[in-house]
Structures are given as structure tokens and as C-alpha cells.
């Protein structure tokens, strides 16, 4: 008999649906990274992304029995994760609206920090670091598209389905995201060149 680690996702989900905790653990180990990355790319907060990952897997535990074999497990899992994160974001935005004045203060503070940061030598290192995290500077939907395709390794067709878009619209979103990354990269290069002249 094959070890449970070798079972494919479909079989593991069927086992999870029957209440098999060992299958759940294997599925968690296998897919936790995918869910965490998608959650983090949407929420941009480690703690919130971990909480979202936990909630998503609890939902999987509860809903595994409703999984239909006509949908790929990974697509189903990522759709649940995305919907959960969007719910979290919606709640967060509503809370922020309630505390509008606090929020505007934070934005002005953030702008001050960014304005000051571009002038110090220490920040040169920070900008170098930023190149590596340019993904997280992208708008939400572009981040999501890149994460699905490059980190979750989902095909464009499936990723479009997860985001509820037509494939052509998804392709254009992805191309726009890559273009923005390129622009950021050029901006960083110009900035670093400026430092080296000084």
C-alpha cells in the first residue's frame, strides 16, 4: 500500500471529508505555503495571513465533504482562501472608515517617513531591500495575479477563474503587473545610480 504522503490532493480531500486527521495533516503540509502566500499577498500582514491560513484550513476540514471532483482541489482551496481574505479586507476597510481621522494621520505620517527616507545613506540599503519586495508595492489585484501564477503555480486559465475574470482580462492584468514591476525596478536603478554619483 502506498504511503499517504504519495496520495494526490483529490484522494486526501475525500479522506479529510471522512474525518481523517492524518490526511488533513499531510494536506496542510503540502498546501499551507500556497494559502499563506496568497493570503499574505492580499493582506500584507504576517499575523493576519497566518490567521487567514488557519481559518481557510478549518473551512477545508468542515467543507471537504462538499468538494466536487469536477473542480481541481488547488483551485478550490485558493478560491476559498481568496474569498476569506477579501472578507477580512472588507471588514478591515470598514473599520478604517470608522476611524477615518486616525487613518489620515497615518497616511500623512507614512508620507513624511517616505520623503525623509530617500535622503539618508542608510535608506540606500532599504531601497536595495525594496527591489526584492517590489511585488508587495503593486496594487492589490496585480499582486494577487502575480502570486497565483508565479508562487502558487496556477495556470492563467485557472487563475482567471479564481479571480472571477475572463482569461483575456487576467492576461492583461498580469502583463500590467509585470510592467509595473519593471518600472519599479528602473526607478530603483535610477535612484541607486543617483547615490553612486554622490
Amino acid at each position, binding site marked *: 500500500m502506498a504511503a499517504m504522503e504519495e496520495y494526490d490532493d483529490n484522494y486526501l480531500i475525500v479522506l479529510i*471529508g471522512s*474525518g481523517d*486527521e492524518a490526511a*488533513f*495533516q499531510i494536506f*496542510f*503540509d503540502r498546501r*499551507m*505555503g500556497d494559502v*499563506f*502566500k496568497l493570503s*499574505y499577498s492580499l493582506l500584507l500582514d*504576517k499575523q493576519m*495571513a*497566518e490567521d487567514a*491560513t*488557519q481559518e481557510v*484550513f*478549518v473551512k477545508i*476540514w*468542515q*467543507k*471537504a*465533504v*462538499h468538494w466536487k471532483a469536477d473542480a481541481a482541489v488547488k483551485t478550490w482551496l485558493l478560491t476559498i482562501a481568496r474569498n476569506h481574505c477579501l472578507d477580512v479586507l472588507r471588514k478591515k476597510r470598514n473599520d478604517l472608515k470608522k476611524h477615518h481621522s486616525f487613518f489620515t494621520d497615518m497616511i500623512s505620517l507614512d508620507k513624511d517617513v517616505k520623503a525623509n527616507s530617500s535622503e539618508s545613506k542608510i535608506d540606500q540599503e532599504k531601497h536595495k531591500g525594496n*527591489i*526584492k*519586495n*517590489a*511585488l*508587495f508595492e503593486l496594487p492589490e489585484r496585480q499582486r494577487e495575479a*502575480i502570486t497565483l*501564477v*508565479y*508562487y502558487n503555480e496556477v495556470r492563467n486559465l485557472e487563475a482567471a477563474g479564481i479571480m472571477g475574470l475572463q482569461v483575456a482580462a487576467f*492576461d492583461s492584468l*498580469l*502583463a500590467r503587473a*509585470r*510592467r509595473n*514591476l*519593471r518600472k519599479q*525596478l528602473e526607478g530603483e536603478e535610477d535612484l541607486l545610480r543617483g547615490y553612486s554619483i554622490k
Partner: protein
Amino acid sequence: MTKEAEEKLKDYLALYGRDFSRWPITLSAAERKIAADIPEYKAAQDVDSVLEETIWPEVSSSLKARTLEKIKSMPQAEIQMPAVPLFVTMMIRKPAYLMVSLAMFLCLGVVSGNSYKISSQPSDTAYSYFAMGPAYSYSVQAGGAYGGK
């Protein structure tokens, strides 16, 4: 290489990057080789490098334990079976009902078959799908399927 073909390769580079495994499989090896020589390939390579070097936060080691702890207190959803009609339930529970139902269906079949045979004329069967010859001759006699004179 035509201008259109080059534009297509540029679009693919902008969309899929330098990793040809993501590209449409319809693209030939020669086209991929040409794509690698386009100046846009370097730009795509830079973007891919940024994506490869992205630093993701480390996931807490306690996350798995926390999740496993939580699911222990969570009941799983139950499968909702579709509602079964009462007469089906009765047939399954009592074989006598099943036998009576089968006998009734049999009788109904015999009666309806006989009534069709009595009421139908020989000409009805002549033009059925199973009798190609008469149907063809009928259409010829009547002036064809398109209503000729």
C-alpha cells in the same frame, strides 16, 4: 521574421516572462530561440529575477499545531442526501410493493402496446424511420421533399 511575429513574441515575454515552460506549447523551438535574442528578453529576465528574490515572511512553527487543535473542536459538515420519494422507500423496505409495482408496469406496457397496434393503420408503419423504402417512394410520388409539382 515578420513584424507581427516579433510583436507576438514581445507580448509573450511581457506576459509569461523568460520561463518558456509557461509559454503556449504551440510555439516552436525556433521561435523560442528568436525570443531569447529580443531586447525585451532582458527586461523580462530582470522582472523574473525580482520575483524569484522576493522574500516572504517565515510562517510561525506553531501554525500547524494551532490549526490541528482548532479542527478537533470543529464538527464536519454532513452529507445531505437528496429526499427519496415515499413510494421508492416503500418499495425498498417491502419486497411485496416492489413486485406489485413491477407487475403494474408490465401490465401497463402490454395494454399500451396493444392499443397502439389496434389503432394504427398499415400505412402508419410504412413511413416510419424503420421503413426507408416506402418513405422514399412516397416523397417521390408527392413531388419530392421540397414540394415540387
